[in-house]
């Protein structure tokens, strides 16, 4: 793991940095949203796993596999949030929960999507990311 994000995320970060402009970056993000390898199906969206405070619908489930490694499944009706969560899942899935709990969203800024990190209360991604970190901390202590 590099200082700021897991090494296996480097190619994705570069892919976004190579985009011509922000519209191309968002087009790429929409592609990630559509091709989430481990999504949280709508049937599994419940009040319990809903992220409150977002203006879009957003749900997160964090668990551990048999080896005690982190598994994130996320679903959102906004494609931009879904795309960012897909990339976050690629980053954290298979990591030790204690390492996940120390992750920052620096990769999002590096990808040229700083807007997604605004402290605007309606910000779906940041609310979801913070929930993942909180759950990782809890899971690392169990």
């Amino acid at each position, binding site marked *: 793991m590099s200082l700021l994000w897991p090494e296996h995320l480097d190619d994705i970060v570069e892919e976004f940095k190579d985009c011509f402009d922000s*519209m191309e970056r*968002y087009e790429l993000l*929409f592609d990630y949203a559509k091709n989430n390898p481990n999504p949280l199906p709508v049937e599994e969206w419940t009040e319990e796993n809903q992220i409150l405070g977002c203006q879009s619908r957003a749900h997160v489930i964090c668990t551990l596999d048999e080896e005690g490694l982190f598994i994130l499944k996320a679903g959102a009706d*906004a494609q931009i949030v879904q795309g960012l969560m897909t990339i976050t899942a690629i980053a954290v899935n298979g990591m030790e929960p204690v390492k996940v709990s120390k992750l920052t969203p620096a990769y999002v800024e590096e990808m040229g999507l700083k807007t997604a990190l605004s402290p605007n209360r309606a910000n779906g991604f940041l609310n979801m990311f913070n929930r993942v970190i909180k759950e990782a901390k809890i899971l690392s202590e169990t």
Partner: protein
Amino acid sequence: MLDVKAIRADFPILDRILPNGKNLVYFDNAATSQKPQCVIDAMSNFYENYNSNAHRSNHTLADEASSALENARNQISNFFGAKPENMIYTSGATEAINLVSYGWAKNNLDNGDVIVITEMEHHADIVPWQELSKEKGVEVRYVPINNETFMLDMEAFEIALEGAALVCVTHTSNVLGIRNPIEEIIRMSKKNNCKVLIDCAQGAPHEKINFEELGADFLAISAHKMAGPTGIGCLLTSNERIQEMGPFMTGGSMIKKVTIDGSTYKNGHEMFETGTPRIAEAIGWGAAVGWLEQFNMVDIHKHVHEIAAYAGKEMIKIPGIKIFGDPTNKDSSGAVSFLHETIQSQDLALLLDQGGYAVRTGHHCAQPLMDALGVPSTNRASFWIYNTQEEVEGFITHLKYICEKFA
């Protein structure tokens, strides 16, 4: 006829280049308008040259601050055709409505009394009445909208009026841009001996509101949607109603005498303006009103209506776009709510922002209206005095591009 180019020169923020290099195109005016330089200067001048508390100390700066606060009250109340002694400064329309609820309704309505509101109200004109209902047992009746015309169902309104004591209606919907038939609503309400509160937060930037001519009991107004600063607004009321009101918030400034045995209060607007007043904000609002007075509000409405109607006509041609409301209606305020059938509203807003276009997204603090429309949220482009046809043309081009690429 407005000289929009000259008007734009008064708003330094309209020259803003966003971090992505795009020019700002501000279409979020129903949330808050931008401020002309004269408003910014008036507020800076207060802080630079005569900042002092008002109605307290006895020195030159205090006299200047007090005079400026009261001069602004005179100017603003005159603009709205109301008496300055019946204008109560508040933090905005929300506090003004709460003041009616806690200051008037709590003292004058009781268990079983009926308050009529509508499905298209902002939460600021819903939640205070729900709270009063819990506390006093008053009944709150909701007038629905017609889902085809997006107008209030006036037949239902007439039925809801029966036995009602208070009617609270928005002048103009912040979501739909629909201007309600306020004059008719007031006439019908008065015929039924109802008191009337009109939420003018959205109406005041678009037409000349005159308290005396309208004949309502209460008008709630926000400064920040009509070129003034945030954090200030007012409640306009009548001699009769202000006499019936009790204190809402208590503390300094509003008292005649405080002893350890109890307190007595001042009369009129002073009873409701406790604590240090919003002096800079009042001065800024006065400057905003002075700036608006150079125009005929009919010309402002005509300009805004023309670009909103044009936007509505062009947007509806884009496959997947649905519009809520009727921006072509001659009375509409300039707010155009819309959705794309597959691009989620938050996504659409962020993609519009990439082109420099600032629009509002969400439930617009009008969830009962969202329920009536059958949607969780909408995007809303809202136009005002400084927006241009060219800006709308650019917006349509960018919206088309988004819909082609991301749908």
